[in-house]
């Protein structure tokens, strides 16, 4: 999409304005007050995209757009997104700085969803709608870094990457060449499946290779937008370096379960976080059918991306003056929302991780977290919401939390909860203390 038609734009703008107006009065964090207005906007943008598709494989591409719209609406109804006026407003401040510095962007009417995922990530749908995961706010150190990521996403939109990848995918999958290959494979008496897998592999590798090129291009175009702003250009490099670390580990801040839950009357037991013996001595899944991992990456390695950026632009990599004050506001705004999301979505492993990272700890919320874990274990439903640790994860501390949740017996959690609230009675509210204390009354 480059520019919307007048009619479509009018409809989209009306929907958006109405939506933004009502957003501030919303009560439910996971649903906009005027969901119809948002749907209207999404319908219009999708319709615009469909109307501007080229004729090749039109119905197949139309189906993809329709399905994507359906999925997005289902996600909205499934509480995948957070509609928090304060966070949105804060995000818009950064966006406004980007728009001001890049007036050509003002012709577009973008909409940014805030996804409830704690995984740091952002995405572009290619039609002017974007997704920013709430975990990103917690992961970044400054507005500068956030601005670079937003510029990168906007660059995907400007490059029309979604549509070009869609065209590539459709033309590849439904090409004469592919059809002939499928016919040939079907005629094979032996080895059909492997031949089919090989074909799928080739299509996948081609798409991922194309996607990597698009990512580098989005970095370059994104940097041009970013460079026009007042933000520190070096944030582009620090952000990519961070993303490089993310390839290895995401949730790896040091936490100590022992110091948190070892109480005077109920001591921490080492087997609560003891790992089981591995079935195989391997750092990763052993797979005789494994595809080449590098070929399955949609993004190039961060180092390659930095190299490309530095080759094209002069960036003072020693300039580390990032405005940390601004992101602090966004982080402090997002943190309570993250905790609430994790409670609502019953992600008690991440909840403990987020709570235990803080010093001094939030005794009140930690008591609540233990109470929730206790009730979930008592109802035999903890396995639905908290995954078991995988033998291949390097996220040591998150792994320890999962072991703690699953290795402890119900009576352990009950005793931890009881003694924790007793020990920190003066640091939690009477209401919470009394509610929890009720569990232990004979």
């Amino acid at each position, binding site marked *: 999409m480059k520019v919307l038609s007048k009619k479509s734009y009018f409809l989209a703008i009306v929907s958006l304005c109405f939506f933004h107006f009502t957003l501030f009065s919303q009560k439910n964090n996971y649903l906009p007050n005027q969901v119809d207005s948002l749907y209207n906007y999404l319908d219009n943008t999708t319709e615009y995209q469909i109307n501007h598709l080229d004729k090749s494989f039109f119905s197949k591409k139309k189906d993809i757009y329709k*399905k994507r719209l359906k999925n997005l609406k289902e996600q909205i109804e499934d509480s995948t997104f957070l509609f928090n006026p304060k966070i949105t407003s804060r995000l818009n401040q950064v966006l406004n700085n980007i728009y001001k510095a890049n007036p050509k962007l003002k012709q577009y009417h973008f909409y940014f969803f805030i996804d409830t*995922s704690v995984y740091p*990530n952002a*995405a*572009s749908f*290619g039609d002017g709608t974007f997704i920013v995961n709430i975990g990103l706010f917690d992961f970044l150190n400054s507005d500068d870094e956030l601005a670079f990521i937003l510029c990168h996403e906007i660059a*995907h939109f400007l490059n029309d*990457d*979604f549509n070009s*990848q869609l065209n590539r*995918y459709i033309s590849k*999958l439904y090409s004469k060449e592919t*059809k002939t290959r*499928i016919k040939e*494979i*079907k005629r094979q008496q*032996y*080895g*059909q*499946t*492997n*031949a*089919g897998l090989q074909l*799928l592999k080739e*299509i*996948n590798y081609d*798409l*991922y290779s194309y*996607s990597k090129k*698009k*990512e580098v291009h989005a970095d370059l175009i994104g940097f041009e937008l970013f460079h026009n702003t007042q933000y520190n250009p070096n944030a582009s490099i620090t952000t990519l370096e961070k993303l490089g670390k*993310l*390839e290895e580990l*995401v949730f790896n801040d040091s936490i100590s379960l022992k110091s948190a839950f070892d109480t005077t009357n109920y001591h921490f037991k080492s087997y609560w976080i003891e790992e*089981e013996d*591995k*079935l*195989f*001595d*391997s750092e990763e*899944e*052993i*797979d*005789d*059918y494994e595809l080449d991992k590098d070929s399955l990456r*949609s*993004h190039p390695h961060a180092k390659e991306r930095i190299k490309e950026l530095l080759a094209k632009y002069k960036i003072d990599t020693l300039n580390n003056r990032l405005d940390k004050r601004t992101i602090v506001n966004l982080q402090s705004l997002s943190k309570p929302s993250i905790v609430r999301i994790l409670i609502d979505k019953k992600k008690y492993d991440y909840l403990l991780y987020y709570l235990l990272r803080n010093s001094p700890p939030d005794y009140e919320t930690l008591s609540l977290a233990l109470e929730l874990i206790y009730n979930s*274990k*008592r109802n*035999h439903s903890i*396995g*639905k919401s908290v995954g*078991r*640790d*995988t*033998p*291949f994860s390097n996220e040591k501390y998150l792994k320890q939390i999962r072991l703690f949740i*699953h290795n402890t*017996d*119900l009576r352990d959690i009950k005793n931890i909860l009881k003694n924790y609230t007793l020990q920190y009675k003066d640091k939690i509210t009477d209401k919470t203390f009394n509610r929890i204390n009720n569990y232990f009354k004979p």
Partner: protein
Amino acid sequence: MRKKILIIATLFLSVLYTKAQSSKITDVVNFKTKNAGAIVDTNTNVDAYYIFYEVDKLKNGDREYAIKILDNSLNPVATKKIIGKKKTFLAASAYNNKEMLFLFINFKDKFIRYIGFDKKGTKVRDTKMDISKKELTWLLMLQDSGYYELLTPVDNIGFIVATTVKNKKIGYKVSFLSSTDQVKPWTYNTPAESKEILSFKPIKVNEKYIVALEMSKKSKYSQKSSVFVNVFDTKNGKILFKKPYTKETNPRLITNGFIEGDNIILLGEYFNNGENIFSAKSKGLFIETLSNKGELVDQKKIDWSNQLFKKLQSQNENTKKRSYVYFHEITKMQDGNYYAIGEVYRKTVSAVGLASAILSRGNSGIPVSQLTITNAVVYKFDNNFNLKDLQVFTKGKSRAPSITDFGSPQLNAHALVSWGAFDFINLQTDVKKDRFYANFLDYERLKGEKNKMAFVSIVYSDGQLSSDNIYLNNDRKFVSSVLPAKVGNVLLLEYNKKEKIIKMHLEKINIE
């Protein structure tokens, strides 16, 4: 930006995946699941799960198969490719902490093949063994009867593979497959001149001894069997002693064995001399200790009518005189006490059987009697096998039609156990934490509520017994079930009939 990276890519992938699934590529890329199951250790704890499937058809009647292995937390950890003959099925699997062994059977080409993978996932053995159709048929038949074990892991050192051998009748061959340089492989063959049908079932193994039950009978339909306890030296396969428990001398139904130092402890039910263990009523429980030469070191019997039944009646006044207890398992805990887990049952009249008999003037073929199975019981015995305590755990009634109206209720109970008619699922022991979990599947009839299936676990921990109930989803839209899991856990499965989605989650059995 790794997993969901700039959704452009993610959406794209999902689009590709979705479309690929519905496109014609799926016509040529499909996998046929042949079988799936759990890899269980000697304490009935799940070490892993596997899915065995066919990937491709190859030339000369070959097939490409794959085994997907999941750890006991359901994480996929390995997928191994195997080329083999068509119509091969995975008959058994085991893990001994050093090696994972899969045993395949091919009826058409008449062979047994075993493939082992070490801790790095490298194939360390691939052996094919020819076997006749008759031997294979007997092997599977004996295995189905519950008196034969094809594959048994010996922790850290190897595996015992027992295959049937045609001699004058049917014997067996025990092959020890070593997973370590310290123990050499060996084989043991039953005498070629033997004129009996022999079965082999290890009841306890360790690095020193293999304690196995050998059942022998003259013909396929013979009701008369003799039981022998064969003890082998694990290191070289030499038979250390063979002790008979025949109808004439010492008839016993041996259910459990323990190895304590160089002593072998056997437990089970005893009978009077001359009684057939498959049709007579047992007199009670026994324990006996044998030296590694087969000499009787100690023995004790606890009779049913004067001790076990009286204790049951004292704990549960409603217990009717005709009630019995079917003992599923006996286990020993670190305090030296033994715990026998059973279910109370009695013979009752089946309304359906009776009505059918009246209508058909006694020619319906449907048994008039049935077994009514009620509460779970745990008897506690001290180190000297003195009865100390009994705890009754209330369960709903289950009814199972008798196999025959003739013979004792115990005969029917024995037969019905192998059909899974009792509520008992298994006993899992956690040696490290000195716990056991006796698991049952109970159908609860609740007043004013819809009847519910419940997974019930009787837990022994810190010297105390407690129970935990997990109600399964009884919504008609779902099919709910429980599957074996690692010790102290249960795998709950829900199949959404409408959406055709299976959801599984592991839950810990609660101890409060």
